[in-house]
Every structure is written in structure tokens, then in C-alpha cells.
């Protein structure tokens, strides 16, 4: 058992898979000797050699194409996009190519690729680093999109992602990398992709969240408890396709829901969740399902980030609005 940060848990997941399977390769910009700009691949090149863990030239589309070609020749690429804001340079490889390869080849060729990338606000990065672009990925059939909220989940989910025979976009919230530690087993374990986790049980309202917003929602749930309301907090973990069964079962129990995401209101995952709830459980609802999101501006410059991002106070406010509807 290690008392690890999420960054360490992610490193450990990659180490585990590099050990387990010769065909697993880790590559990207600065992931080798430097161990990645967040040190998430720290030590892996030393341990597994430059043949397995290597730096690429500075070209994201090249990295995506490399992953596809390596997958075609029997490898299991774990490619890093240094910051997810740079996904636009490799959008074709991810959303246009690997996502549809199984379908295009009539189920004869597969793309067992994991696309790892840091994202997320609140850490005052320069422009085009922090944006929550998971919605763009979630709108792409053929991709799975995974966003862990803590070290334990991150390890189990990443191992599953690397073993999956379809492409998985694995997004790591920068603020969660080192903000807290958790006990993580040193042995390997997996967490099934496509399943959500109930992080807190409650009967009065369902709060659906993912990534850093799980932490914020847990804080909000504590505050709500002080006010006498028991909130159920669901961590989606796989945000696309998401675990609609767990969400609906919870809403049918609590009859009320809010969806919390860091992404702007018009982006992200929340709209899809609201739509599914409306289609499947409208008669269980005592109030409209509301969203807690960032406003529909471009991602702001660093100095105004904190005012722009959702926080526990806003979640509490929205939850009360729904409860008192």
C-alpha cells in the first residue's frame, strides 16, 4: 500500500503495464529523461529503456499518427498530449482516425491506444492549457473518455484503459495531480470502464460530477448535510459513454439532480446527462435538473480563473434551488 498522489498512482499504472506487456509503449514530448512536465512518467525510461519509453519530435499530429501505426503493428501505445489544449493539432488522429478504425476496417483492425493528457483549471496555466475539451471527445463515437477524480481510481482506470482494445482518452486534472494523497494498493487492480461510482450516498438530491468537480461536490454535500439535506454524489469516472444505469437509479431514488462540470455550459458532458435523465426518468423528477458549469466564454486568463470556475458554494446554492423548487 502506498500513500500516493494521483500523479504517482498514474505512473504506477503505466509501470505495471510496461512490466506486464512488452507491446506497451509510452511516448510523447518530454516524457523520457525529463519524466514529463508533471513528472508523471518519472523514472519509466530509466526502468524500461528508450525503446519502450521515449521522447517524440514536437508535433502532436505526428504523435497521433505514430500511435496508430504502432497499434497496426501489434503495439499498445500510451501516447501523451502534453496539455489537452493542444488536442486540436492531433484532432484528426484522435477523433477522425483511431475512433473509427474498427468500424472502417469492418472489425478487422483495432486501435488499442490510450491517449493520456493533463487538463483542467485552477492552476493558472497559460492560455490553451486548462480548457475542458472532453465534450469534443465525448461527441465522437468510438472513443471512450475517462476522467478520474482520485489516486485510487486513476490507477485502476488507467490499467483498464491500457488493456482496452479500443481507443481511450484518459484525462488527468492538473489540480488533482498533487493536491492530496490516498492509500493505493501496490498490486495491480482494474476498475471497469463505463461504470460510475457512488462516492457518497444520500436520499434528497443526486449530484453528478467528474474530475475535480467530484471534490467540490463532496464539499458541497457536507455543507448540505449541515443544512439537513443528504446529497448522493456520483462520480462518473468514464464520462463517455457514461453509466446511465447508475445515474437513473439514483435519480429515481432522490427525485432531484444537478450535474456539475468545469466545462462551459455549452460544452462538456452535462447536457447529455440531463437529456438522458429527461428521457428516462422524467416522471421521477420533482424539479428540473440544473447544471452547474462555467459560463460560456472562452477559457479565461489566469487572474480571473477562480471567479470563473464552479465551486462548492455555487453547487450548494444550485442544489438548494432544486430542493426548494
Amino acid at each position, binding site marked *: 500500500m502506498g500513500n500516493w498522489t494521483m500523479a504517482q498512482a498514474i505512473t504506477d499504472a503505466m509501470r505495471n503495464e510496461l512490466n506486464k506487456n512488452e507491446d506497451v509503449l509510452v511516448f510523447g514530448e518530454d516524457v523520457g529523461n525529463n519524466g514529463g512536465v508533471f513528472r508523471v512518467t518519472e523514472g519509466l525510461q530509466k526502468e524500461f529503456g528508450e525503446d519502450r519509453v521515449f521522447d517524440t519530435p514536437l508535433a502532436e499530429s505526428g504523435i497521433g499518427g505514430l500511435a496508430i501505426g504502432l497499434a497496426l503493428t501489434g503495439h499498445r501505445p500510451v501516447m501523451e498530449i502534453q496539455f489537452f489544449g493542444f488536442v486540436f493539432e492531433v484532432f484528426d488522429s484522435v477523433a477522425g482516425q483511431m475512433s473509427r478504425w*474498427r468500424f472502417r*476496417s469492418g472489425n478487422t483492425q483495432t486501435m488499442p491506444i490510450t491517449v493520456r493528457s493533463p487538463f483542467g483549471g485552477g492552476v493558472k496555466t497559460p492560455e490553451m492549457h486548462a480548457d475542458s475539451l472532453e465534450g469534443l471527445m465525448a461527441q465522437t*463515437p468510438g472513443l471512450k473518455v475517462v476522467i478520474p477524480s482520485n489516486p485510487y481510481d486513476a490507477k485502476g482506470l488507467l490499467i483498464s484503459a491500457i488493456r482496452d482494445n479500443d481507443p481511450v482518452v484518459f484525462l488527468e486534472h492538473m489540480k488533482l495531480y498533487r493536491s492530496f494523497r490516498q492509500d493505493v494498493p501496490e498490486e495491480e487492480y482494474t476498475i471497469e470502464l463505463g461504470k460510475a461510482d457512488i462516492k457518497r450516498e444520500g436520499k434528497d438530491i443526486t449530484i453528478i460530477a467528474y474530475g475535480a468537480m467530484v471534490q467540490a461536490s463532496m464539499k458541497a454535500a457536507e455543507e448540505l448535510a449541515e443544512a439537513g439535506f443528504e446529497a448522493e454524489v456520483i462520480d462518473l469516472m468514464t464520462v463517455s459513454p457514461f453509466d446511465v444505469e447508475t445515474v437513473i437509479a439514483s435519480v429515481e431514488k432522490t427525485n432531484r439532480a444537478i450535474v456539475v462540470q468545469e466545462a462551459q455550459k455549452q460544452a462538456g458532458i452535462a447536457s447529455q446527462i440531463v437529456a438522458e435523465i429527461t428521457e428516462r426518468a422524467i416522471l421521477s423528477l420533482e424539479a428540473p435538473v440544473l447544471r452547474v458549469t462555467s459560463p460560456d466564454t472562452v477559457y479565461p486568463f489566469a487572474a480571473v480563473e477562480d471567479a470563473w470556475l464552479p465551486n462548492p458554494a455555487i453547487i450548494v446554492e444550485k442544489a438548494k434551488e432544486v430542493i426548494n423548487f
Partner: protein
Amino acid sequence: MRGLVDKLSTKTIAQVEEQFETFQILNEEGEVVNESAMPDLSDEQLQELMRRMVYTRIWDQRAISLNRQGRLGFYAPTAGQEASQLGSHFALDKEDWILPGYRDIPQIVFHGLPLHQAFLWSRGHFGGSQFEEGLNIVVPQIIIGAQIVQTAGVALGLKRKKKDNIAITYTGDGGASQGDFYEGMNFAGAYNAPAVFIVQNNRFAISVPVEKQSAAKTIAQKAVAAGIEGIQVDGMDVLAVYKATQDARKRALAGEGPTLIETLTYRYGAHTMAGDDPTRYRTSDEDDEWAKKDPLIRFRKFLEGKKLWSEDKENEVVEQAKEEIKQAIKDADRTPKQNVTDLLGFMFENPPVNIREQLEEYTAKESK
């Protein structure tokens, strides 16, 4: 100071361009003009090369007509480019990987893709891309440039798996303007991976002439920036294309790095059969000029000079091609229709909940 810098850079570009003179073996009369470069091919191999070019020309004519009758789908004509396509392919090993563009169907058919599957692909049926195990090709690429970065990956993968094989990819002169073109060559060069990049310069990207693609005088010289070998070849000369590709392949396997080959060629027909009208962007004089360079005429003259080809032989190939094409269309027609259930089944190995639900819905609908 500025004057000096300008002069220096001009000189450097001129020097680079000088290195990229067109490589040729057979001239337009079918005469050998470069004896020392003659590839070592047996009489049978020479005849096989001719057979493939004639076959492909007939297939192109049939495909155009089938398309007009509504019996094929998407089709990009290939007449004029036979030497470039089949000469380069002839230099490959059966296990080499091909990453084709939409026009590079002849290469993958001669690599082993059954003709009826090529027709299915043209119709947009997934049966066309269900490749037999061991047939090392990928689905023809529509996104220009995507195949080039992927080639770097396949080449590195082959090197890692210690295979004695290369990855070859094709694009056009327009494709050489893509960022992915540079990224792919650069990656393959940086990893010293066994890749061969072929740019078939048929002078037009749909309607835009190559002169408007780039200020570079040749596409071959773009290899310089990636630090890899580059060569410009007469793309109407099947022996020159074969020899250049064979050399590139050997170098790649010897660990001497990737090569960019620019083949100077011409497409006689439309860009695709989806309404393109070449008379809008090129003159009949230009067409006539290039018709004189025809790779089939040139190679036929060469072979006839060696008593390796005759009208009878050619007619035999034409008849065989027509027969096989007829049969392939029949086979394609017999292939069961695809339905939405099939597609849903091809999204993931383990369908997640949304796919499972939709599968159920469409299975019920489509099994009626």
C-alpha cells in the same frame, strides 16, 4: 547585411534544386537512356509489369463506365499513373505495409486485395475493408496527409518487431502541402524507420496546379528539411519508378533511413467521378503533351524491341481483365447488404451501455 543574407539563401536553394534532376531510364520512345541504372528484372517480370499496367488501364475504363451506370460508388481514375503506382508496388515484398490514398487502389489489389472487395469499398460497403489476415494494408485514406504520419508509426513498429519489411505510403502533389506530410517524414527520419513516401505529382490537386502549391521547384527537395533521401523520378517510366523504389526499400532495410520519391505523372481523367470536369482547369494541349509520355506506349515499345510483347499478348490481357472485372462485380453484387446492427457491432470490442441499447433496438427492427 540584408543583401548578403538574401544572396546566401538564394544560392542555397539553387544548390538544393540542382540535386533533384529527374531520374529516367526509358525515354518516350521506349529507348534506354540510362543503361547503368537498368534494374535486374527477368523477362517474365518485365512482362508481368506490362500485364499489370494494361490490366489496370482496362479496369480504369470499366470502373468509369460502371460508375456512370450507377454500379460503383466513389471512384478516382488512375489512367496515366500506372507506371507510378504499379512500378513502385512491384518493388515491394508481399509482407510490406501499404498505406494508400483514395487513388491507390491498384497497388492494394496487386498486393492481394480481391477485386470484388475493391468494388465493395468503392460502394461504401465495409466488406471492402475486411482484409484477410496477413494482408498488410489499411483502408484507403480520405483525409489527405493522415496516412503519412501513420506510415511513420507502422515503419517504427516494423523496426521494433524486427521485421524485414517497410511501410510505403502514397499521396499527391497537393498532399505534399499538408503539415502531416512534414510530420510523417520528420518522425520517420528521426526514428530512422523503414518508410518510403511516394508523392505522385500528377500536376493537379483537384483543380489547383502544382505551381500554386508551393514555391519549391520540386517536391523531392522537401526531403532535405527532414534529413532524409529524396529523389524525383519520371513517373511515366515504369522502370525508373521501380528502380527508385527498390533502392529506397533496400536503404530503408539497411538502416539507412526513409526516402521521399516524387513521381512526375499525369492523370488523364477527372479527379474523381463525382462531377469533376478537368477542362475547367487544364487545356487539351497539356493533355496531348502528356499523352505522348504514356507509360504503356513507352514500355510496350521497349518490350516489343526485346520481342517480349505483341498485340496478341495485349489482347489476351484485355480479355482477361474484362472477364475478371465482370466476375468481381457479380461477387460484389452478391454480398449481403450491410445494416445498422452491423455498424453498431463494430464500434467497440465490448459495447458500452448506449451501444448495447441501440443494438437491441436495431436488431429488433432489422430482423423483421
